[in-house]
């Protein structure tokens, strides 16, 4: 997705997906195309409530920066968003888009969400979209989210869930999860 956002994938991407998931089109309209075209979320974490002005947020697996930019608009200039992604290609894409938008209330950090490069109790809110399902050790991820949240802080994330048990062969077929 980072290097070929217009390739053929088994999931929706980009602006049509954002519209389908109910994102605020006025916010999306202010983003550079490079951020929108790499969007591959599976839901809308902001449907559980907008972030509040002045809050500090962490975006797990920020990709091209789409959800980070939505969060940055919501927390405003008094707030701050830290976006974490493990791939340099996505970080380059999101940094470039951030520069084009002229927003200064966020920071991109390279890292994995099982070992977040964020201080204990720093965040008011943690967001994520379609990333936690990709982690083999989900409990470790949730423990790490708990570590970086302040007391009373919240987690808002979108992800996929199955209504039926997956066969072992599907669970072990890595291409299904990493395309």
């Amino acid at each position, binding site marked *: 997705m980072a290097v070929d956002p217009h390739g053929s994938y088994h999931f*929706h991407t980009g602006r049509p997906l954002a519209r389908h998931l109910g994102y605020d089109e006025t916010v999306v309209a202010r983003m550079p195309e490079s951020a929108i075209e790499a969007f591959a979320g599976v*839901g809308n974490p902001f449907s*559980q409530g907008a972030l509040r002005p002045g809050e500090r947020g962490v975006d797990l697996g920020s990709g091209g920066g789409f959800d980070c930019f939505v969060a940055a608009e919501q927390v405003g200039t008094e707030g701050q968003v830290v976006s974490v992604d493990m791939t340099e290609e996505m970080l380059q894409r999101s940094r470039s888009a951030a520069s084009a938008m002229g927003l200064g209330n966020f920071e991109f950090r390279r890292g994995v969400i099982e070992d977040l490069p964020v201080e204990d109790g720093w965040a008011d809110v943690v967001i994520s979209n379609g990333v936690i399902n990709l982690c083999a050790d989900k*409990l470790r991820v*949730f423990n790490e989210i708990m570590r970086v949240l302040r007391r*009373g802080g919240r*987690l808002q994330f*979108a992800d996929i869930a199955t209504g039926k048990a997956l066969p072992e062969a599907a669970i072990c077929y890595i291409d299904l999860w990493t395309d």
Partner: protein
Amino acid sequence: MLEQGGFVEIQIGSPVDTFGGAGGESKARLFEVYGYAFAAHKPISGS
């Protein structure tokens, strides 16, 4: 698993047909895969 991680006040939104019309739709249908928005809080008390 959220409860296991210590989260409270867990909320799950309505299912979204994330894969509808995409290349992976048939497999998503087979296993009833949908997107959901979750919310949960870190307790005010405790560590």
